[in-house]
Each structure stands twice: as C-alpha cells, then as structure tokens.
C-alpha cells in the first residue's frame, strides 16, 4: 500500500509549531511509518514541490515571495491544514498591521531598500483555501496527531470551538478571574491547550484565538470593572491573535492610542 504523503511548510514564524512533531519523541518514528513525510525542512526531508495528501502550514504570509509559493503548495495538496496562530490568524507579528511598517524598517535597518517585507502579516486563508485550521500558539502534539489520525481514517477532524472556561470547569480548576481578579481571556478563547494558564494560577492570554460565539464586549466590560484602563483592555485582545476578526474588532473598539 502506498503511504499517504505529508509535507510541513514554514512561512514567517518562530518554528515552535513544527516542534509539535519534533517533540513527539518515539511517536515521531511511528508517524514516519504511517505516512511518508516528504517535506519537513527543519527535520531534514526536502521536496518543497512534491504532490501531497496533507500539507501542514506554519507561519504567516509576510513577504512578497510568500504568496506564489503558497499558491503552489495549495495546487500540490489534497488537504491543506494551518497549524498555529501565525498561519491561522497572522500571529503575533500581525501587530504590525496596525502600524507604519515602513517607518519601522527605517528605524531598524540601515539599508531599508533591501528588506522584503509586506505591510501586513496575514493568515493563510486570506490567500488560498484552507481545509482545516488548528489554532494555538503553539499547537499541541495532541492537536496535530488527532488531525492526521482522523484524516488517515478518512474523516475530517472535529474542530474544537469551546471556550477555555468549559475546560477549567472539567478540570475543576479554580477560576483565576473570580478568585484573583486576573484579567483572564478564557471566557472568549478557544480550547485545545488544556486550559494551561489557569492551571498554573494565571490569566489566559488568548493564544488559541476566539471561541465560537465569544461575547467579547461583556468580557471587555468586566476588564474595565477590574480596573484596567481602555488601552490595557484593548491589548488583551490585540496580542497573539490580533489578526482574528473577533479579537481585532473588540480591541479596535477600545483602543485609544495609536
């Protein structure tokens, strides 16, 4: 039997989501037995233009040459899955979308003309069709393995859209907002991480992006009730997933300074 082919591609990112594979340990060798990993530059195999059954994409579109490369990957792939915040919403570097990037380049580089950088950092779905999004900064091993396993069984993986709050309740984690006045984003953030931040006693900062039906305005009101000024409350939404519509709109509504 021919093994399904898998490729893992990187765009603008920190490489952290690829570690969901590299950190698998022995299961990585098992995975390599189930599928043929034809392109995964960080781990070794390189065949960027191979036709594959599943392409996983880390990173956001951020330079002019990214777009054409992405279109080729799409044309060569049956299923295209984004892994992580960068690929799914533009990531932390989408914070530049609210600023004058050209000024930043001039501030940093002596020779700005040679820097290839688009004004905005954008999600993969802004440019090509995406079959499945795995949110998170970073994605977890469980998420990526679940997704590949489901596809090997011939079904689409189930998307997790619940709120972190639900997960805290299931874990019986004490609420950090109610008991400790922490400005926790759990009420509007999607599950998938395992509600890690409240489990260590701190506020969630939204790295898994918006949950479904997120009532961001109610949470923003609560943040103000906790004593956050508007800008501080805005920055809760404008952080790792500032490119996600629901967070962006709430953040922009509250932002007072540029």
């Amino acid at each position: 039997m021919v093994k399904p082919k898998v490729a893992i591609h990187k765009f603008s990112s920190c490489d952290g989501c690829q570690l969901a594979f590299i950190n698998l340990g022995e299961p990585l060798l098992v995975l390599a037995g189930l599928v043929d990993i034809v392109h995964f530059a960080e781990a070794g195999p390189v065949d960027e233009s191979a036709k594959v059954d599943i392409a996983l994409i880390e990173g956001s579109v951020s330079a002019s040459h990214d777009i054409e490369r992405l279109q080729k990957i799409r044309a060569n792939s049956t299923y295209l899955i984004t892994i992580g915040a960068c690929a799914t919403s533009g990531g932390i570097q989408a914070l530049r979308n609210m600023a004058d990037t050209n000024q930043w380049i001039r501030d940093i580089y002596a020779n700005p003309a040679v820097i290839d950088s688009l004004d905005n950092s954008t999600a993969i779905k802004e440019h090509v069709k995406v079959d499945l999004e795995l949110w998170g900064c970073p994605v977890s091993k469980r998420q990526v393995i679940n997704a590949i396993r489901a596809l090997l069984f011939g079904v689409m993986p189930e998307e997790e859209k619940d709120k972190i709050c639900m997960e805290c309740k299931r874990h019986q984690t004490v609420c950090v907002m109610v008991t400790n006045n922490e400005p926790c984003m759990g009420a509007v953030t999607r599950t998938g991480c395992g509600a890690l931040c409240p489990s260590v006693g701190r506020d969630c900062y939204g790295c898994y992006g918006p949950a479904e039906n997120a009532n961001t305005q109610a949470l923003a009101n609560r943040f103000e009730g906790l004593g956050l000024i508007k800008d501080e409350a805005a920055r809760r939404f404008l952080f790792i997933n500032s490119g996600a519509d629901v967070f962006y709109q709430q953040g922009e509504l509250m932002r007072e300074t540029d």
Partner: protein
Amino acid sequence: MSNETIKINVPILARVEGEGALDLTIENSEITELKLRIYEPPRYFEKFLEGRNYYDVPDTVARICGICPVAYQMSASHAIESIFQVEITPWIRAMRRLFYCGEWLQSHALHIHLLAAPDFLGFNNAIEMSAQYGNEVRRGLKLQALGNDLVTLFGARSVHPVGVKIGGFSRAPNKKAVDALLMRVTEAKQDAVDLIHWLDTLELPEDNQDFISVALHHDNEYPFNEGRIISDHGLDISIDKFETHFKEMHVAHSTALHCLLDGKPYLVGPLARVNLNAGQLPADTKAIINGLKTHFPSKNMFHSIIARAIEIHFALIEAERLLINYEVTEQPCLSFEPKKGTGYGCTEAPRGILWHRYDIDKSGCVTSAIIVPPTSQNQPRIEQDIRNALMSLGLDKTKKELQLHAEKVIRNYDPCISCATHFLDMNLVRDGVVENSMLMDLFKNADLSKTAIIGVGSPNEGDRLGWQIVDMLQQNERAVELGKKGMSILKLDRPGVALGEIIRGLDCVLLIDAVKQGEKGLSFIQIDVDQLINPPKQISTHEYGLTESITLLRNLKMRPEKLVIVGVNKVSKSVVTKILNMFIND
C-alpha cells in the same frame, strides 16, 4: 550593488532563525564572495513591544523563538526586574537555573540528533539515521523529552511556556511532580555519558581556526542567568557595558543584524562556554572530559557537537542537584511597584549569550527594546569560518563536496536557521560560471522529443550571443547526437509574446540569451525561472525581454514544466560544454 556594510545606531529586532542561503564565488582558486544570506522576513518584535505593559513582555519575547523561549523569557525578566529593583529570592534563582537546564537539554539533544549527527554519519536526516542507529536516536529523543518535561514543570508546556512572570513564577511545582522528574534525571545521566563517548568516536574534521570565544562567566557556577561577559582575548565587562564593545550592523544580504566585538567576529554558544568555563563544571563532568580524545579548550568548531553533549551532562547533574534540594515555597513570585528606568539582561541561551535592554516608563510600559540574539552575533564568525574551512578542504573539490562541507560548518553553530541550512541553496560561481545545484541535473533523462534548446537574440551586435551558441551546438557531435534523438535546437529573433506558441507542447526548454556585458564578468548564468520573483530588467538586452515573456507565460499558465534561462556574455567552448552537460549524464 549596494552591499557595503553600514553602521547603524538604531537597534534591530530581527529574529534570525528561519530561511537562509549561501552565496559563494571562487575565482582563480580564491574565494572572492561569500555571503550567508538570511532572508527570513523581519517580525519587528522590538517595535511591537513599545507601548506594551511590562507584564506582557515574557509572553511576547517567547514568540521570537519556539526552540529557546526560556532564554528570551529569562533575559527579559532579569532586565525588567533590575529596573524595578526586585531582588529575587534564592528559591527563584535556583528554579530559573532548573528551568534553563530543561531548555539546554531539549535544544542540545534536538540539535545533536536531529540536525548535526546525520551529517557526520552520512545520512540525510534522523529518520533515515534511525534505521541504523535506532538506539542512539531513541536515546536522543528521550533526553530531549526529559528537557521538555523540565520546562513543562514550570511552564505547563515546553514551547512558549506560560509560568514565567516578572518577579518569579506563577506557581511552585508540587513535590510529587518534582520527585518523578528527579528519578528520570538521575537515570538519564548515564545516557549523557554514553552520548559523549559515542560522539567522541565520530570522525570529525580537523580544522583549527583562530577565533574569539565569548561567554558569561560566574565565579561559583557554570553560567546560566548571571555573570560578567568575558572573552579569551581579555574582555571582562558587566552586562550593561555590552553596547560599548559590541556593535550591530546591517548588511544587505541579511535580515538579521551582524554583531561585532570591537570590530571583530566572535563566537558564542556551547564551544565558547566550555572553552571559557570548563573550570566551573561539576567534578563528574570534568572527569569525563579528561578521558576524551577530544581536548578543550578547542579551536575546532566541529567539536561543538561534543561541547553540546558535555553541557547535556552538566545540565542533568545541575538539575539533579536542584531537584534533590527542592522545597515548595509560599512565595514563587515577588510583588513590586513598576518604576521608570533602563535595564539590561544577559543570559546564556542554548546558542550563546542573549542580550536585552529595555526602557520602561513610570506606568510600567516599554518605551524601547533592544534584543541581540546569539545567531546574529555568530553570523560574521560563521562566514569567516566557512571561508577558512573551504580553503583548508581545497577549493578544487566538487561542488557537492564544497556544499556539504559548508553546510556542516554552518550547522556547528546550531543557528536558528538550521532548518534552512538543511536545504542550503548554494549558488557557486567558479571562474565565471554560475552553477546552480538545483538546475544542473534538471534536464537529465528528459524526453528529448519534447525538449528544445533555443537561442534567442537579434541581429544587433552583442545580442547575437544566443544565436552564436546555437551555431556552435549545431556543429557539436554530442549536440547532433541529441538532435537525432529528437531534441530541437533552434534560433529565434525576439520572439516576445509569440514564445508561448512556439514552445507549446514541450516539457523541457532551455533558453539561451545574451546578458548585459560586464554582468559580474560572467560567461554563463543559469537562472531558475521560478526564482524570478521580480524579473531583473537588465538580464536581457531586448526591449521586450525574455523575462517579460516568461512572466507572461507563467501568468497565462503556458510555461513548460521545466524552463531554464542561460544568460551568456561571451561565446566559448566551455559554455557549450556546460550546456550539454545539463542534458547528458557524465
């Protein structure tokens, strides 16, 4: 070409891991150009830190690197705590060392097994290597997993851990989790010993070079979070004096700034640390080093892989000590009031010193940030090393050998572009001939009935070179042989938009066109059409040049599967031979 080095005063942000390439030119047995290009798009971390509260900093800077987020969190925490005059407790200090042991362990084990060892054992990657070296790979993955679990003990996950706060940790780990890890750490010490001895048996190239090692140094311990910055050439400064000796510059071929020490390249990372701090290692680790055939301090960068393994052993001994003495605390994080000021942080990331500077206003918001990662510090040294290493290897070696050796050299530094250097795209120009490794074999075994070599030009002087090459090909025996097997060899006069019609149905097309005289003195340039992102206009002397035609073909989806342009600026037998070698197996 504006590739001169320019000094700048404004700091960079640049995270440097990511995409890189190597440009190398050899003329008359001398390297005349060597550039390690880093073209990972900038991500502007230092800029979007401006205006954010101090408490967002650890979670922000972690995102610079998925492989060493702990290092970024640690340098940032120390810098900001120094502004707020927070004196951390012995418990916090000890736990930060333990946290850091986890990161070194996972990062070093990852690099040794997944990135570097396949080089020295002749495999393309660790998955291939695991078929023959299953136990070694499994041992490596086990050490890496243990490192990740130590980070997770405090951070709840190993990539972008969430437990770090300015002033300490969100929570103290419970004793049960600590004891479980202690057992694994104790058991893993033997794995580290075996790993060091295994690496010591590898046939590593002999290549001693003169370079400056730079690391943190602390009188009482092997350095992690604290110490003075020292070198083996007499430097000995406190971390706040970094900017008086170290200067960052922007060079055109890199989105990572280059950093120089008093104008010179220098080395940071495991080999520099072992060279400067071997005396601070635990007795058990020292005893192992004394029994090796490899000696430290070493001036051979290929010994970095062993230095990394030595630090794995150190990290396990240090972690064991800290875990044995572990007590749960009531105060994992200190409270404080934000203050205005400037602070510095410098800690030893797995790849070397990571220096941060922050200005904070009285409300606790960042007004400016400077981050100098290890890879931007090593980049000038890497270029220097490749140059020396290739010279001692011999510049007459085949392109493949030169490339593999250059890749090995680069990987010694474990740059965060390790990922990219695994598919290092080396453009080698030897005596005026550009050899692009991706293209040299593109036409081998092509279906000759669907293949064409087309000389493009016009009757104008200087623009007939493509035609003249075709004339020579038509009289060449090997070319005639290819013609008999069905390949077309023809001339076209400024085909422009008609090119698409002419090459319709062909799979493989090689276009020969004149390039501007004096174009770097080249007589032959192969251009991968897919690399023509912004077609350089000067590549053709035609008014409606080939690049425009090809861009059009590509946009109309009419281009053949394999299409290469060869630019020539003189007619010679060697050019003809080069062209034919692209089609015929030697």
